[in-house]
């Protein structure tokens, strides 16, 4: 079984090697004429005010946390889907419970306005 993963490893190495080689080549081939304006961050021709790395909207954390929860849910769905044919109705009922409980969570976030992005 491990042998079937060997091509993947080789493929990854090839792709990563290609990427690194490209990086290297362009840094060797390209000219280097740095200047102050060239090295400063682009902000439409005006010197930027403050740093780009500042505290950001809390919405992004919420998205990431919800994503984790639902990603875990999806991961549970695959083994279930693979064997559903043999689990029959039993499996269906199980999953209805599982998804039902999570749907409650989704509805909760929905009603609380967690899925609104403008406010």
């Amino acid at each position, binding site marked *: 079984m491990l042998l079937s993963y060997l091509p993947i490893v080789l493929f990854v190495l090839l792709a990563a090697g290609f990427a690194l080689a490209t990086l290297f080549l362009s840094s060797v081939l390209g000219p280097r004429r740095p200047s102050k304006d060239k090295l400063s961050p682009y902000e439409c021709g005006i010197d930027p005010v*403050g740093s780009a790395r500042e505290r950001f909207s809390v919405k992004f954390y919420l998205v990431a946390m919800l994503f984790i929860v639902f990603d875990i849910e999806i991961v549970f769905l695959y083994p279930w889907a693979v064997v559903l044919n043999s689990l029959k109705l039993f499996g269906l009922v199980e999953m209805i419970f599982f998804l039902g409980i999570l749907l409650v969570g989704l509805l909760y976030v929905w009603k609380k306005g967690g899925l609104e992005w*403008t406010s």
Partner: protein
Amino acid sequence: MTEARTMTINMGPQHPSTHGVLRLVLELDGEIVVRCTPHIGYLHTGMEKIAESKRYQQVIPITDRMDYLAPLSNNLAYVLAVEKLLGIEIPPRARVIRVMLTELTRIGSHLVWLGTHAIDIGAMSVFLYAFREREQILDIYEQVAGARMMSSYFRVGGLFADLPEGFEKTVRSFVTTFPDRLAEYEDLLTRNPIWIQRTKGVGVIKPEDAIDLGLSGPNLRACGVPWDIRKSNPYSGYEQYTFEASKGSHGDVYDRYLCRIFEMRQSVTIVRQALERLPDGPIAVQDPKLTPPPKPMVKQSMEALIHHFLLWSEGFRAPAGEVYQSIESPRGEYGVYLVSDGSNKPYRVHFRTPSFVNLQSLPRMVEGRLVADLVAIIGSIDIVLGEVDR
């Protein structure tokens, strides 16, 4: 989770969707615009100052460069103001040609607006389609004036030259094909759900606010205020044409879009009517003190030569006084305030440009909305920075 701070970011002057060198300083909370401060003047060329040292006739090419998408509208407003100051009437043929060409200009300007507005919202194909049609309008400019953009075709007292041969055919073919093309653009946008989502209810401005902020043109009409100078205070004989002023009701980006599309259709009908009634006759007032005599005459008649020389070296003098003339340019009320001290140069010229005034409403429309809306709203106000900064 602590309180998120706002981030100050410059949008423009080097930005693809500020329609020129407009600089907006945005205060963002996430993606929501908390405050928007426009900074203008990056294209300030001091046109009003330059005009004070030019003879009346020489100011015309300067006006082209203000709203460079509608050069003939600028020409028209200026020459009308000078003619008002002089107290002269131009011959009917010149008037009809002026109307026809300013309406084509309106279509051309709205086409650029449509293309850029659409590409701002991501509908890139419309941009190229709109420019294809605008190209035909530039061809028409080229036919009459020799220049594709800065045509300076309207002159004080009439026109630069009579229409060339084949002109009517070109215009006729344009007005027959254009409505179908317009319908095609509408197919891509008007009922497109994404387009509607991006524009409906965005950048809403109430009619009383719009008046308070001095909005004019399609921006004002989209709020439901049916003010069109062509209707309310007709100039150049607009009262003789049948057309409708556009009218919206919600004052949002979508209504402004509909208004301009509607105006393009109306302009086509006006151009058609102008083609129908185009009379024969002179294209300028027959006053050698104001308009140059025909070139062959200059070569034969001493008097004509003197007039020609005087006009080119001294220009003409206008009576002392002041006038204000405004027209309905594609962007709204385009006014020219002219003060004369009786000499051959304007003592003071002021251009009341619609973009300058309309841009002022931007912060009121965008604050509290998303950056993406900002882009849609800028596009919908349809500003030209050459006109904002002058």
